[in-house]
């Protein structure tokens, strides 16, 4: 295995719930509750789970768009969350993010060319004469055209805007990109284009991705390793092949059984989970999944399962795996 670019160690992110007259903290939403993993150089790591399980919060905390509550994020040997404001700003070009919603992630009053190029100026990476050429070059790499330079975001379709968002991240020559559900707001036909763009870019520029998604088929196409999250914790992590061939956690099995298969005659055993995802402000005791788990026993209600290595670089947190 090559060297780790990103190491996340016991990361926790709680959002305080305030209440009462004096805005005292009356509780915490445990969006991310002790998650550890590492991503190697050139790898794409997929993070899956249902809405509200803390995937996006992890992505944003790794980039320090949110301050952590506890734990460590090590990027290239440096603890991101201990850097000063100036040092952090210098670090920014190396780690970028592509947002989920291509409509709210672009400032409506800034022309596309400026939106893509402005970070280069602020980091002093290019002089003003070369700027336009660099921006146009990046636009073209991302499948847009030079004449788009002077357009406003509202003149573009969702897929084109997502390309703009990718170009904006890419122009800084990052090593690491967090793709926060980059295709879930797009039409299926456009999704494929964007995913292919991302995977081509990865090959050409040796990028490392953290790919956040709730769509397993997307992750399967793009990622080498996959982590499955439930309610702020990692429940299973393995290489793509291993995870699809031999899922161990009942939650992963349920997710995999829900992936649509383009064959209407095929009979499958769907595992349908009962109930809703519990509130992360007040997670269930023991194994957080026991309220919806088909295998749950008394042990699961009392004891938190250990997140253990079952061999073959496969980690799982379940008493019965």
């Amino acid at each position: 295995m090559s060297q780790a670019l990103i190491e996340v160690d016991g990361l926790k992110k709680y959002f305080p719930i305030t209440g009462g007259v004096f805005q005292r903290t009356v509780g915490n939403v445990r969006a991310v509750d002790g998650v550890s993993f590492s991503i190697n150089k050139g790898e794409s790591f997929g993070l899956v789970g249902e809405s509200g399980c803390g995937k996006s919060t992890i992505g944003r905390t790794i980039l320090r768009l949110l301050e952590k509550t506890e734990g460590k994020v090590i990027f290239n040997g440096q603890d991101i969350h201990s850097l000063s404001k100036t040092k952090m700003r210098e670090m920014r070009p190396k780690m970028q993010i592509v947002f989920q919603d291509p409509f709210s992630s672009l400032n409506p009053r800034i022309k596309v060319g400026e939106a893509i190029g402005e970070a280069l100026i602020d980091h002093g990476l290019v002089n003003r004469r070369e700027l336009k050429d660099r921006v146009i070059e990046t636009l073209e790499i991302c499948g847009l055209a030079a004449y788009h330079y002077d357009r406003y975001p509202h003149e573009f379709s969702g897929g084109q805007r997502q390309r703009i968002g990718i170009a904006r991240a890419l122009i800084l020559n990052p090593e690491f990109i967090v793709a926060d559900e980059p295709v879930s707001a797009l039409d299926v036909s456009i999704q494929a284009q964007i995913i292919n763009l991302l995977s081509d870019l990865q090959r050409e520029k040796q990028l490392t991705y953290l790919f956040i998604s709730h769509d397993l088929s997307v992750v399967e196409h793009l990622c080498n390793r996959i982590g499955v999250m439930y309610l702020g914790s990692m429940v299973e992590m393995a290489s793509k092949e291993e995870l699809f061939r031999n899922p161990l956690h009942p939650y992963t099995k349920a997710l995999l059984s829900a992936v649509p298969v383009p064959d209407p005659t095929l009979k499958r055993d769907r595992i349908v989970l009962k109930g809703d995802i519990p509130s992360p402000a007040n997670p269930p005791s023991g194994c957080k999944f026991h309220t919806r788990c088909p295998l749950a026993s008394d042990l699961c209600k009392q004891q938190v399962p250990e997140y253990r290595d079952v061999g073959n670089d496969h980690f799982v947190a379940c008493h019965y795996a």
Partner: protein
Amino acid sequence: MSAETAPLKTNLPVPKKRPDSPWRIAIRRFARNRLAVIGLFIVVFMFLLCFIGPHFSPYDLYDYNKLDKNLPPSSKYWLGTDKLGRDILLRMMLAGQISLLVGLVATSISVIIGATMGALAGFYRKWVDTLIMRIADIFMALPTLPILIILGAILSDLKVEPSDRIYYLMLIIGVLGWSSISRLVRGQILGLREQEFMQATEALGLKDRRKIFRHLLPNTIPIIIVSATLGVAGAIIFESSLSFLGIGVVPPTPSWGNMISSANNLIDFRKRPWLWIPPGMCILVTVVAINLIGDGLRDALDPKMKK
């Protein structure tokens, strides 16, 4: 490079027409609002009248025609003369220059201070926010008229030249007016900074200066324009009332307010309406027109705020 990343072969031809910016859309929406366009015409007309009109006048501001005192309108003096024999039309136009200028400059001062303060408070929050907003509270709590009367008295006491007085007046009206704009801007920025494109600026590592002045403030310009337009009308009225009370622009410099106050006795009021009706109408028409523009701008720039 593989086929997927080659430029998208869109069938769309490169459009010839300049694409629509948010501003162009707003201008079109404004142009459809008949009342606002009428208001705009009136204001432009007032500006032309006040700034170009005097060049066509045969008289001079300091022409004291002792033989032509208190004449009613005639073909020689279109709007009559005052008790010193000065042409009312010329004075009204020159007074308009002063009043419009005071309104514009005072409001610009308010907007510059208010927008910067509001942006800093909304962007940095914490103690910066608390400090700036408490100062704004103090400015809002100040009883404006007594302060202005005192400041006017101080200016008179310091024997400030009447021609310089208008500059102090602009400054005073401007500085007293920043707090409401700063509140508006701060509120907007608090909302904007939570938007995803602001997270993007953070991830890109842009400088604070660019985040504030390039990303946040341009998005508050619609509400700034609207409140500034209405502020100009307010400042004109303010200046007029102060001048009427004798603590704003003082004679011999004319302003619409002090022209009205020169008709402050019953005989002038009843027998010589040409002394006070023209400047009075000017104030009324200008302020109404500016307010119409302001309403039109609000509808054009911020459709959500409508009604």
